[in-house]
Every structure is written in structure tokens, then in C-alpha cells.
């Protein structure tokens, strides 16, 4: 069985001094140090990144990583828009299911702030279909369409969405590596300018730089020697149409539903066993849909449930969501997010989460989505 | 007999009032209105151009008749604001309309008479047996420099005419053309806005060419203004067509319905044809219509048209009701739509 034995994340935010591969190098060195491993002990690397090709004309990243690691091993890059990190992790787990006694390094990284917001927005819309791009639908535009549809169908208002951002910003204030450390109020969210109606600036995750890395192993001698470890009980990746308009329903992400069902089946546990979750809140509406599609809440009741503050740290709830600050407050360096989510669950399960440590958690779930729901990765970890 | 089988027109939704422009430049709006006799003009949106408007008017023209599009072997696009300096809008239009591909297409330019000149050529091509039908489009998103008189008059619109031999609603009984080299209004390559010779655009230009063209057609046909139910002239402003009609011997009653410039502005190549659209809403079978265009540079095409009994039912299009669907915009919005800022 595959275990995670180490996790390192860089600061997430506007990291002017660091290039993409500076961040990759920092994450690699960080996680090797954490686990007291040398570069020569890594048997394979999986790298998640979305935009280096589009923004920097930089491809063939596996070879770049080989230059950093100074070894000759298999290295693969995965891309699934914002689920690039989750996809890299999924491939790494599958690699370990097929190869025994190996140590695998998984890194997710993204550099977004070297470019103007328009260039970044245009690049991110590569996650959408050609027709969506041609209609001038930005990425926020797609989620805004979903949000508008959801709010109208279930009779909620923009105010319901704001609770997601408020909760996640509170969590971000407890996480030193988060992009945003400031707490915000529901009024702050409602007063922020529109990005794409009904989503506002404070409903939307930011443009950030960052890198995160984990080390996976199925070598039992290695696991026994390590101070911290968590079991990877399941990792499932499911895809759906790239076009929002071709999906069966506009108010659900089917890929999330199917990946979750498969992951829970593989892990042999129930939804109520999960005490901690990192879900994909690229926009406030996305967290509400995630909670419903993952099976924690019933379809359509998310707008109501979020107002109860039940998933916020410190309220004694059974399931705490996005203690890292989520994508909203921790930041969303696209390729790094999927790994950061898994890393945060690892920290919680190994009692390393300091100010935001949730008590008595045995199982955790990470949920990473690409585009408007074209890819979903659900990973379940156990302590 | 060659003539018009069906027609279509498109006026964009937006209007700007003369006073909205005048007050920016510190002019008294009443003085401007008195001098140009224009209340407001039609403005195309930021994402519209002569091609998109032509598609609207041509689709309208083709929607009311059951014509096999493979029989439309002539497509002519007349404009002063072609989307490209080199690349035919006529073929872009034809492709979107599903006319393919054994047809002759070209774009024409002769200031405001680009399309009426094309009508004459199309008529000849049909008569020679080359094609049963011809589609001729006039379309402009008229430009005028700021703080210039053209700013009050230059407007947007499109008219499309489907010419043919059978089931005509309007017969083209006869026509004439009068041309000279008269630089009254022009635009050099690469320049965004046209330039003009001020008062030179009047007597030696507009009036001279229209009068000579009209007189030679009257002489050729033996007809006089009193024989016509309607007169339609090119309308650079609200005053010129009224003055030239009077000097030729038309009464105000004969031209009043065609004076669309007062509330739509001067849509350059579509200008006189929009006046014709207004008249066709009311004209009766047997009516003779005198149509006279003017293009700077300069020239004038005049036509004797006769209304047939086929101008009825779905072949006759509503005009006044359609143009009442409008929305007023401010001066900054106007500049934004015209991409001047």
C-alpha cells in the first residue's frame, strides 16, 4: 500500500524573486530534507503544471527537473488544467501500484504573476472549450454561469456564496503559507466589484505563484524509518466533457460525483468517516457544488448548509473543510493546488497542522477539479 | 424586363441626437438642426460593421422569396467603409448567405453611389443572360471626424436588393448615369475619416450632378417630375434633397416620405436606398418612382422605377414601425461604438 511520508510547500503568493523552476527546486529540496532522503533515492517523479507552455513557451519540463535533481530516472508531466496536481498524484499512485519498493516524488508548481492579469486570464481560458473562449466566456464566466443557474434554481442569493470566502479567509489567517492571511466579512464580499455576475473579486481565487511536493513510497522499510506517514487509501480521476453546455446538468460536476463514489468504494469507508477535507473552491460556488457532488450534502441544500458555519475550524463540526484556506485564501498556483490539498490532509492526519489542527481525524479527502468540471480527482488518505 | 424581386434593409438600434453632439462642442443645437435639418442619426454598435449589417439586410431580402440560391450568380457589395482595403466583403457575405460558388462577386466604391452603380451593372449582366438573379448590397458604418459637420450626419445602415426577371415588385424602366472628376469629398488610403471641400460640395457637386443626371433621364424617357408619385434623392443632410427636388420641379409632397435623413442620418451608400425603403412601404401598383443617387468624386445615377401589383403581402416590408425600435446613446458611447476612443 502506498504511503505519503513527506510534504513541503513554498509560500503561495506574488513571489517576484522566484521563477517557476526556482519554486520547483525549493519544493524538491524542502521535501527531501523533511524525509531525510537524498535525490538518488527517488525512483520516479511526476510533475503537475498547466501554463508553462502557454505563458513562458517552456515545455519538456521533465527534462528540466532532471537537471535540477541531477539523476537519470523516469519523470512525467501531467496536465489537466487546475487538476494538474491531482492528476500527477493519481499517476504517481498508479505507478506505485504497478512497481514495488519505489520512492516517488510528486511536485505541482505554477508561475502566474510574471504576466498581466489579462494575459493570465486568457491563458487560463485554455481550460475551456474553443467555443467558450470565442464567446468571450472567461474562466470566471463559466463558473458564474453555473452560480447564476444554481442560485436561481434553488432560490439562494449572492449572500449565500459569500460564506464560503469568509470561512476560507479565516482558515487562511491560521496558515503561514497562505497567499491571503486577512479575515474578511460577508459585507466585504458583497461589496467587492464584479468579475462575472454574480461572482465578485472576493468570490474568486487569486492569481498566485507557488510549488508543493510530496513523497510517496510503497517500500515498508522506508515507511518504518519515517517519523510521519499517512496511507493513500484511494485516488480516482474521472473526466467529463470540456464544454459546460455538453454536461448532463449545469448544477453538478458529474466527474466529482463519479470519482468520489469510486474512491469511497476503493477505500471501503463512508462519507461520515471523513473528518477533514480539502475541496476545490476556485470560486465560492465551486465549494458548495463540491460538498454536494462529493456526497457530504444533498443537492441543492449547499446554499443553506454553508450558512451554518458547520465546516469552519473551531466550531466542533464533524467535517472541517479547507483548513489550508482553500484556493480562495491559500492561493491558487494552478499546478500546485492539487498537491497542496493532499499535503494539507497529510499534515492534519500526522498532527502537524499547528494552529489549525483538527482533533481526532482519522480519514481525510482531497478534491481537485480541472476547468469547469472536465476533470475531477478524489483522493482519500488514512492515518 | 429586369427589376427588383425583393428587398431588405437593416438599421442599427442605436441613435444619437444632434443636441448630444452639439453640446459637447459648445454649439447651439437649434442652430445645427436648422442648418442640417437632422434630429438624430443611426449608429451601429461596436461589434457591427458594413458586412454584419449587409448580412442582416440581405437575409431579410432573401427571406421573403423562394429563390434557389445557386441561381444568384452575381453578388455586388457597395460601401465606403469596406471591412478590408483588400479582401472582398461580397464573398464573405455570399458564403454566410449560402450562395456558392459559381458566382461573380466584387466590391464597388464610388462614395455614396457605390451600390446604385452596381445596380446598373447587375441589370446588364442579367439582361445578357449570365444570371437569373443578382444581389446588390449597400452598406456603411459612416464615419465623420469629430468637431466636423459630418459628425452630425454620417450614419449606419444597409439595404439589399435582389434583382431578377420574373415576379418583380419594382420594374427598372430606364436609367442614366452622369460622371465627372470633381473632388468634393474624398478619403485617402490609410486615413480613417473622409475630408471634404465645405461649400464646394454643394452647387458644383451635389446639385450639378443630380440635376444633369435627372435631366438626361427625363430627356431620354420623355418623362417629367409631374409623372412621378415619388422622388427619392441622395440625402447628405436634410436640406440638399429638398432644394434639388424643388429645382428639378418636384413638389415637397412627392419627396417628403423619402426624407429619412431627418431621423436616421446619412448612411452613405445606403442613403438614397433607405429613402426608397420608406417609400415602398406606401407605394401603390402603377406608381412611378424617380430614384437619384449621388456619389462624391463625382457622379449621379438616376432610375425610373415602376411599382407592380406584386408589392403586397409579405413582399412589402414595414419600415416606420421597425425604425421606432431604438435606443439613445451618449456622445462617449457613440465614440466607443465608432472605435474613435
Amino acid at each position, binding site marked *: 500500500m502506498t504511503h505519503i511520508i513527506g510534504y513541503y510547500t513554498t509560500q503561495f503568493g506574488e513571489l517576484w524573486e522566484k521563477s517557476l523552476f526556482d519554486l520547483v527546486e525549493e519544493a524538491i529540496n524542502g521535501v527531501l530534507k523533511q524525509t531525510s532522503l537524498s535525490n538518488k533515492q527517488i525512483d520516479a517523479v511526476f510533475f503537475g503544471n498547466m501554463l508553462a507552455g502557454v505563458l513562458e513557451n517552456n515545455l519538456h519540463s521533465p527534462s528540466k527537473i532532471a537537471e535540477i535533481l541531477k539523476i537519470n530516472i523516469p519523470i512525467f508531466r501531467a496536465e489537466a488544467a487546475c487538476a494538474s496536481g491531482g492528476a500527477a498524484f493519481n499517476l504517481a499512485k498508479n505507478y506505485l501500484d504497478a512497481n514495488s519498493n519505489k520512492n516517488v516524488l510528486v511536485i505541482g508548481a505554477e508561475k502566474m504573476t510574471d504576466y498581466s492579469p489579462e494575459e493570465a486570464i486568457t491563458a487560463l481560458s485554455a481550460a475551456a472549450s474553443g467555443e*467558450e473562449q*470565442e*464567446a468571450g466566456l472567461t474562466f470566471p464566466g463559466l463558473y458564474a454561469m453555473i452560480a447564476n443557474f444554481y442560485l436561481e434554481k434553488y432560490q439562494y442569493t449572492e449572500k449565500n456564496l459569500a460564506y464560503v470566502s469568509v470561512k476560507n479567509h479565516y482558515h487562511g489567517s491560521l496558515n503561514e503559507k497562505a497567499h491571503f492571511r486577512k479575515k474578511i466579512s460577508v459585507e466585504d464580499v458583497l461589496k467587492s466589484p464584479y468579475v*462575472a455576475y454574480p461572482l465578485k473579486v472576493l468570490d474568486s481565487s487569486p492569481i498566485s505563484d507557488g510549488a508543493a511536493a510530496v513523497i510517496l513510497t510503497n517500500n515498508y522499510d522506508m515507511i518504518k524509518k519515517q517519523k510521519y506517514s499517512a496511507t493513500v487509501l484511494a485516488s480516482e480521476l474521472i473526466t467529463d466533457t470540456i464544454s459546460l453546455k455538453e454536461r448532463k446538468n449545469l448544477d453538478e460536476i458529474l466527474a466529482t460525483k463519479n470519482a468520489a463514489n469510486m474512491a469511497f468504494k476503493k477505500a471501503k469507508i463512508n462519507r461520515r468517516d471523513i473528518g477533514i477535507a480539502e475541496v476545490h473552491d476556485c470560486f465560492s460556488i465551486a465549494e458548495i457544488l463540491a460538498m454536494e457532488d462529493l456526497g457530504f450534502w444533498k443537492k441543492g441544500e449547499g446554499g443553506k448548509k454553508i450558512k451554518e458555519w458547520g465546516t469552519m475550524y473551531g466550531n466542533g463540526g464533524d467535517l472541517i473543510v479547507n483548513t489550508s484556506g482553500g484556493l480562495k485564501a491559500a492561493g491558487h498556483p494552478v499546478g500546485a493546488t492539487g498537491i497542496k490539498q493532499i499535503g494539507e490532509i497529510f499534515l492534519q492526519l500526522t498532527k502537524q497542522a499547528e494552529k489549525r489542527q483538527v482533533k481526532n481525524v482519522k480519514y481525510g479527502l482531497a478534491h481537485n477539479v480541472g476547468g469547469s468540471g472536465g476533470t475531477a480527482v478524489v483522493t482519500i488518505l488514512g492515518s | 424586363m429586369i427589376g427588383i424581386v425583393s428587398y431588405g434593409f437593416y438599421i442599427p*438600434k442605436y441613435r444619437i441626437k444632434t443636441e448630444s453632439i452639439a453640446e459637447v462642442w459648445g454649439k447651439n443645437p437649434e442652430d445645427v438642426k436648422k442648418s442640417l435639418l437632422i434630429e438624430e442619426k443611426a449608429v451601429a454598435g461596436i461589434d457591427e460593421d458594413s458586412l*454584419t449589417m449587409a448580412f442582416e439586410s440581405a437575409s431579410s431580402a432573401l427571406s421573403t422569396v423562394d429563390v434557389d440560391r445557386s441561381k444568384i450568380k452575381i453578388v455586388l457589395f457597395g460601401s465606403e467603409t469596406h471591412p478590408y482595403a483588400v479582401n472582398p466583403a461580397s464573398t464573405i457575405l455570399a458564403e454566410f448567405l449560402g450562395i456558392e460558388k459559381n458566382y461573380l462577386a466584387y466590391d464597388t466604391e464610388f462614395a455614396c453611389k457605390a451600390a446604385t452603380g452596381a445596380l446598373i451593372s447587375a441589370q446588364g449582366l442579367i439582361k445578357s443572360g449570365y444570371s437569373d438573379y443578382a444581389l446588390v448590397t449597400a452598406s456603411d458604418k459612416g464615419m465623420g471626424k469629430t468637431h466636423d459637420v459630418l459628425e452630425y450626419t454620417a450614419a449606419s445602415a444597409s439595404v439589399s436588393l435582389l434583382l431578377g426577371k420574373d415576379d418583380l415588385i419594382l420594374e427598372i424602366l430606364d436609367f442614366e448615369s452622369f460622371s465627372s472628376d470633381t473632388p468634393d469629398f474624398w478619403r485617402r488610403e490609410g486615413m480613417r475619416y473622409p475630408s471634404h471641400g465645405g461649400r464646394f460640395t454643394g452647387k458644383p457637386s451635389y446639385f450639378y450632378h443630380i440635376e444633369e443626371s435627372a435631366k438626361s433621364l427625363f430627356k431620354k424617357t420623355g418623362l417629367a417630375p409631374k409623372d412621378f408619385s415619388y422622388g427619392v434623392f441622395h440625402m447628405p443632410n436634410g436640406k440638399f434633397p429638398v432644394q434639388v427636388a424643388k429645382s428639378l420641379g418636384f413638389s415637397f409632397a412627392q419627396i417628403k416620405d423619402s426624407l429619412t435623413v431627418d431621423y436616421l442620418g446619412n448612411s452613405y451608400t445606403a442613403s438614397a436606398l433607405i429613402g426608397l425603403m420608406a417609400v415602398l412601404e406606401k407605394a401603390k401598383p402603377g406608381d412611378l418612382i424617380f430614384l437619384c443617387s449621388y456619389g462624391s468624386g463625382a457622379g449621379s445615377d438616376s432610375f425610373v422605377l415602376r411599382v407592380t401589383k406584386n408589392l403586397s403581402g409579405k413582399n412589402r416590408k414595414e419600415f416606420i414601425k421597425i425604425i421606432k425600435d431604438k435606443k439613445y446613446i451618449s456622445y462617449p458611447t457613440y465614440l466607443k461604438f465608432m472605435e474613435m476612443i
Partner: protein
Amino acid sequence: MISPVKIWRRQKEIRKVLGKKGKVLAWTKIYTPGSDFKKYAPYPVVLVELKNKEKIYGQLVDYKNADLKVGSEVISILRKVRSSTNEGVIAYGVKFKPL
């Protein structure tokens, strides 16, 4: 500059959906667009289901705020859809206007 070949291929598809009526399934209004759409902002984008059940995205133009709702009846029209450079081929495409 957008590839002229891509525009050419796309226009054959656009032709098939012009002048068609449909109903709005979902909508939003974009305030922060990408570079090619800056001059049209802010603009609404609608997802429309045509009478033949085909679904199409497009900007909504010539509208009143009351038209921005699920169920609005619209018709597809031809407009310029994105601005590339002053040098490039013009991209014409589908937008919608309220009926």
C-alpha cells in the same frame, strides 16, 4: 494574430446557426475579460438552446437588463466576435439578441 485558417474553418460552422431562435438556459455578465474582448466589456454571455436542441454560447447584444434571465427568447445574429490586431483577419461569429 488569430490564424486565418482557423477563422475560415470556423465560419463554415457559424453559417449553420445564424438566424435561429432559441431560449436562454444560463447567463452571466463578464466584467474582466481576456485581451481579445476588452473593448466589448462589460458584456453578457448566454447559453442558448435552439429549437433543434443544439446548445450554443454567444454574447447578448442590443438588450435591456430585463432580458437577462433564464427562459428569455433570443435569435442568433452575425457580429464581430473578437478583436485581434489591426493586421489580422476579422473574426465574425454568432451573438444573440432578444426577440
